[in-house]
């Protein structure tokens, strides 16, 4: 008590100058500078991490959006494809994809003959090996769709096999394929020739965004489209259930419910639910929706129900927060002119809280969109090579995957071509999430509090 204050105050008072910092001030300023430096360092670390993340994702994922295509003129002889010659599609279906395979080899042979030979003695069958396994099916679908093309020569664009695609993207080289029986050095020489000739090129591949998943042997044909549709139907379920239920629950708890120990318990439990790991909701969904209610496995409806359970606490908490932020004077004003409780809530409080509610809902949806763990338990992860659903009912009930589950599925597969697609899928998912969060931020900005 006496040492510092008394000694300093009367004796030093006449000498102290504002132009000269005393030791205490210097120490305080130094501490402040240090603290700012810590803060800046922390932010810098965060930014560096973010930059690394973005660079990695973009660097590894953009490749998935381009694909190698081979342009090839294929003759479609009627005598092999339509043996009876009556152009009846039912009859023509008897020719399987194996029947179409030799046509591709012949097409390559013709091409080589026209362009003047090959250095190596690669047989035409091996030449056709640089095409994706989906090439014969593509031919067959084309012919069955329109039998009048028979006996003509048509130019096709085929997907190259994933090894050739990897060669174009630098993932595969002549050294790295020594042990690889799917491709040989001769085939790569052949590819180089096709590049020089201009019939093989890498370009943007819309099918990666719109297509469906493909089997292990055809990574080049796999796409996110169908799992996107699965995610869309799940979000539809979440939105139509979680928003009304969450908002109704919040309004009741915030505006109508008496404040007693029961509502306290409910409140505490809602906060706790928000912190429950999502896989718990997954196993709950498995037990209740699938084992007990016998809803179909792997269905977006079930996924949506599980994600609804997971999203509800988030929506309730944010809705209650935005209801709380509406000043009580607005409620008083409404009640004061003789509005009922419900009128005051629906005419005045809810419109003012709406931006906050929407923001919370969008953030909840974004969370649900990126959620994978609960989907593991209800069978939405795995190879689901379905076609896009043709109706809302089949969209909800047919087995499907979801974007994050599809990404997980690809990352699990051995072929590095799938690994690239996983990163590409991450980019698509992030685009969705960033868009949703941007909408949330814009909404908040647009409807800044107006009182």
């Amino acid at each position, binding site marked *: 008590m006496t040492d510092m204050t008394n000694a300093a105050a009367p004796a030093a008072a006449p000498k102290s100058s504002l132009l000269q910092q005393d030791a205490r001030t210097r120490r305080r300023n130094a501490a402040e500078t240090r603290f700012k430096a810590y803060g800046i360092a922390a932010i810098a670390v965060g930014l560096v991490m973010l930059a690394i993340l973005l660079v990695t994702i973009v660097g590894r994922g953009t490749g998935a959006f381009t694909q190698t295509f081979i342009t090839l003129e294929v003759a479609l002889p009627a005598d092999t494809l339509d043996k009876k010659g009556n152009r009846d599609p039912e009859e023509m279906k008897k020719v399987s994809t194996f029947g179409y395979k030799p046509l591709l080899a012949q097409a390559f042979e013709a091409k080589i003959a026209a362009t003047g030979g090959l250095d190596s003695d690669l047989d035409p069958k091996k030449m056709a090996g640089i095409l994706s396994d989906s090439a014969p099916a593509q031919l067959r679908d084309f012919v069955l769709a329109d039998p009048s093309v028979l006996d003509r020569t048509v130019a096709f664009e085929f997907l190259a096999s994933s090894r050739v695609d990897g060669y174009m993207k630098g993932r595969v080289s002549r050294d790295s394929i020594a042990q690889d029986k799917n491709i040989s050095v001769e085939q790569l020489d052949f590819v180089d020739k096709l590049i020089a000739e201009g019939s093989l090129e890498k370009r943007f591949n819309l099918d990666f965004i719109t297509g469906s998943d493909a089997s292990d042997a055809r990574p080049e044909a796999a796409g996110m489209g169908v799992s996107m549709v699965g995610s869309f139907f799940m979000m539809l379920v979440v939105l139509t259930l979680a928003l009304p239920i969450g908002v109704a629950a919040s309004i009741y708890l915030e505006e109508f419910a*008496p*404040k007693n120990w029961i509502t306290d318990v409910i409140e505490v439990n809602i906060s706790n639910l928000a912190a429950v790991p999502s896989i718990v909701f997954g196993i709950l969904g498995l037990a209740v929706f699938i084992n007990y209610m016998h809803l179909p496995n792997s269905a977006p409806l079930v996924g949506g129900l599980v994600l609804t359970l997971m999203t509800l606490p988030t929506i309730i908490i944010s809705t209650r927060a935005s209801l709380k932020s509406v*000043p009580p*004077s*607005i*409620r*008083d*004003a*409404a*009640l*004061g*002119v*003789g*509005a*009922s409780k419900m*009128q005051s809530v629906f*005419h*005045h409080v809810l419109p*003012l809280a709406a931006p906050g509610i929407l923001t919370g809902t969008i953030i909840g949806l974004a969370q649900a969109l990126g959620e994978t763990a609960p989907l593991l338990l209800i069978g939405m992860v795995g190879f689901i090579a379905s076609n896009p659903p043709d109706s809302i009912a089949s969209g909800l009930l047919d087995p499907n995957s979801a974007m994050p589950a599809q990404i997980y599925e690809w990352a699990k597969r051995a072929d590095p071509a799938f690994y690239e697609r996983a990163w590409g899928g991450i980019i698509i998912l992030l685009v969705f999430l960033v868009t949703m969060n941007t909408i949330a931020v814009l909404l908040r900005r647009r409807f800044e509090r*107006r*009182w």
Partner: protein
Amino acid sequence: MNDMRLSERAVDAQNIKIAARNVQVYYGDNHAIKDVSVDIEDKTVTAFIGPSGCGKSTFLRCINRMNDTIDICRVEGDILIDGEDIYDREVDPVQLRAKVGMVFQKPNPFPKSIYDNVAYGPRIHGLSRGKSDLDDIVERALRRAAIWDEVKDRLSAPGTGLSGGQQQRLCIARAVATEPEVLLMDEPCSALDPIATAQVEELIDELRQNYSVVIVTHSMQQAARVSQKTAFFHLGHLVEYGETGHIFTNPEDPRTESYITGRIG
């Protein structure tokens, strides 16, 4: 005290609009209003004065049952308006509040247009037959609140964009638009500057023609300027009630006297 302009005290024998009998209000264990009985006259401005925390607002809010919205609040005793017990089980507080308008301490217009602010009450009570009728009601209410000339050109502008004094007059217009019989005002001028206060006070004096006005104020000059009757509250008791002129010049209770002489304004 001498410079106070006491408003006209001529209160002719009028009928009683609000009669409170043995009113007790509790906030949980806090006994906020203790055994208050008072008769408030029609077409009169009655002022509630007293030190802060003495229960003026609480008692005022009993008259339109705004205390119902506070969970822990409990009201005992009877309050009669025109001889009807407003705490009767049959009475719907929402219906009551259409009849007993209220203006709050802080101007609280809805974040909507000026027009919608005033039209809200008539709309929810179904007081208008069609758009032009509603326009008339809005205009009449705004005129009565002495703000029509200032806002008639911008009825669709937000009410929250007006100045504080204008906002408070808009709130008064909103309250009178539902054609109430009683108008409760809880320190309506405490957030206003002197000029806006003068305008609102003038308005209150005019409103007396049609309504029974009860005003809580912490300013004794204001009570003296606008009211004909004054009630002095202290620690939850109604200490003294009578003609404003009488209370201010000739208080009977020593507590009233010390409040009036000890704290001016």
